[in-house]
């Protein structure tokens, strides 16, 4: 789960990580008020759940209230990578002496929280990683010890020489780690963390992602979620035990298991087709799940053919077949369907489907080719 910059800043404040003053605005007139209230140079920043806002023109410096109004009228309503800008943050613009990058993430290889720090802040860290990977210090944090004073200090000395800055940075690093573990975060970045002209360390942008698997114990974080239209559909699907991701093709897929669902999409693509979605109906397949899945597939108007690929393990093929038959009885399906079933109770499943004269094929490759042919 992702949150907006303004939400990340609020969490930083709760953990006493220094952040520039800011006011969230939804309209141009709110921006005018905010600029007057802050009463100095400000930055107007688009609040969208994607990176690259600056490059897209979604972040503008404003010296006067008029400039802030002008910037806001350009940014509000703007489209950034498919996200419409519906709110902007008006933040105090500080005098920057130098910018740094600080981030925490999960490291799959060391199986730990990884602290990353770089003196090359302000730019996208992925770029730094590609061009100059040695400029990023990476330090795994021992899960038993957490962010100790010495470790925070060690990292601080990699970035700063001035003892007062080292002291400030040590505090920020410890607080950021605490925030990360307290909220079951999967990514927490301050980029940039800046040194101001008067020698203060302050965060002027922040990004946080969270572990979806831990939201059950993070109700305050879950409340910050602002899903877009596609994500709402994904969340609805999740509530009925389905994992759904919409894509832009026209072959609707229904598969059990995430790996098999991905492989199914790949095979479709291999034969020149285009999958309309990723849809994993999961392990235990009650007939109701299959009905929900059919509804989901048919709600996408781009879907011109449905391809069902089931390998029964815990999933029983006869359950899938019964759900499919019920779905076909309940709803109007006027597009072709092709089915591949094997594994647990496949014989019974195939018998049920054959009674309805639905096309059954033996292999995944055949299924993909059948689906492509059906709509060409």
């Amino acid at each position: 789960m992702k949150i907006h910059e303004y939400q990340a800043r609020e969490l930083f404040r709760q953990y006493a990580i220094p952040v520039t003053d800011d006011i969230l605005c939804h309209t141009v007139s709110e921006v005018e008020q905010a600029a007057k209230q802050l009463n100095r140079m400000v930055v107007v920043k688009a609040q969208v759940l994607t990176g690259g806002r600056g490059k897209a023109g979604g972040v503008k410096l404003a010296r006067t209230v008029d400039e802030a109004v002008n910037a806001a009228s350009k940014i509000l309503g703007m489209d950034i990578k498919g996200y419409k800008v519906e709110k902007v943050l008006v933040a105090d613009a500080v005098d920057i002496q130098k910018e740094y990058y600080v981030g925490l993430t999960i490291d799959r290889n060391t199986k730990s929280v990884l602290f990353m720090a770089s003196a090359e802040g302000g730019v996208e860290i992925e770029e730094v990683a590609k061009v100059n990977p040695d400029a990023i210090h990476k330090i795994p944090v021992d899960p038993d010890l957490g962010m100790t004073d010495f470790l925070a200090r060690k990292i601080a000395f990699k970035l700063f020489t001035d003892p007062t800055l080292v002291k400030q940075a040590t505090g920020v690093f410890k607080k950021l780690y605490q925030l990360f573990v307290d909220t079951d975060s999967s990514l927490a970045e301050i980029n940039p963390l800046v040194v101001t002209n008067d020698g203060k360390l302050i965060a002027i942008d922040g990004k946080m992602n969270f572990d979806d698997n831990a939201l059950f114990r993070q109700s305050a974080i879950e409340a910050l979620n602002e899903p877009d239209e596609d994500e709402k559909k994904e969340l609805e699907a999740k509530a009925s035990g389905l994992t759904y991701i919409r894509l832009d093709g026209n072959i609707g897929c229904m598969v059990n298991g995430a790996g098999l669902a991905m492989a199914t999409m790949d095979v479709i693509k291999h034969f020149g087709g285009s999958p309309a979605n990723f849809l994993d109906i999961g392990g235990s397949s009650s007939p109701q799940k299959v009905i929900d899945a059919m509804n989901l597939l048919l709600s996408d108007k781009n879907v011109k053919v449905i391809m069902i690929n089931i390998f029964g393990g815990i999933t029983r093929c006869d359950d899938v077949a019964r759900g499919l038959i019920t779905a076909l009885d309940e709803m109007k399906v006027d597009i072709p369907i092709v089915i591949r079933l094997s594994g647990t109770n496949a014989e019974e499943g195939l018998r049920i489907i054959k009674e309805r004269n639905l096309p059954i094929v033996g292999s995944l490759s055949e299924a993909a080719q059948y689906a492509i042919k059906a709509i060409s």
Partner: protein
Amino acid sequence: MSILINKNTKLVVQGITGRDGSFHTAKMIAYGTRVVAGVSPGKGGQTVHDVPVFNTVEDAVKATGANASVIFVPAPLAGDAILEAADAGVELVVCISEGVPTLDMIKATNYLKKKGVKLIGANCPGLITPEESMIGILPGNIFKKGKVGLMSRSGTLTYLMVNLLTEAGLGQSTCVGIGGDPVAGLYYQELLQMFQDDPDTEAIVLIGEIGGDAEERAAQYIKQHITKPVVAFIAGQTAPPGKRMGHAGAIISSGSGTAAEKIAAFEAVGVPVAKLPVEIPQLIKKLLNK
């Protein structure tokens, strides 16, 4: 021979009184797995499918000599269940539960490493040494004893592959579902080495998917340490960036973790990568006949 489990493995099932735990205990017993104990706090003294139930893993291990554990408890409790199993002294813990918080897995993997206990999963289908022992939720009937070792981040895709192998007359030594989470127990490198050292394994199938760089690391490891033939398949070539494809770990983030990078990494070290699952048996036969 085989790796990790065999007919002598004595299993304790954590969460045996739950719906999934009970169902799959019956399946494992039917396959021939030696299920010696179950654990369900507060239900000690009961039996499930004639298996004695204990309140703690420690009690179960003391009473039965169980040396492996499988976990079917709900995800919020699974991290603690892994710790309990390791603390009780089993050698292998297999966590089936899906949706375990990553920070719980970091804590668990760290503790198990210190204790010298092996972990498979979480969010995995388990593992099987065909015709000897099956731990988890794998459909036993599709597996056949043989010489191919297999490891995979996916469940049902593994079944599809195994079915193809068995139909082509290629039996398996041991098949391990390593799970779809970003932080998990045993991974490619450890398993590659075990298969390399296992005299009964003649070829290795590695089924990977998008997300992380474990496949790239595996490719490097193969180049340096593995002399047996390896073939690979990578799922998710058509997956869009930034979206979790069902598995918590299957995500292309910041442009890295793509299928193309992983395929290139394997091909660069001479590991053939199947474009379609159906090609896997042929690729293995070709390498074995060399």
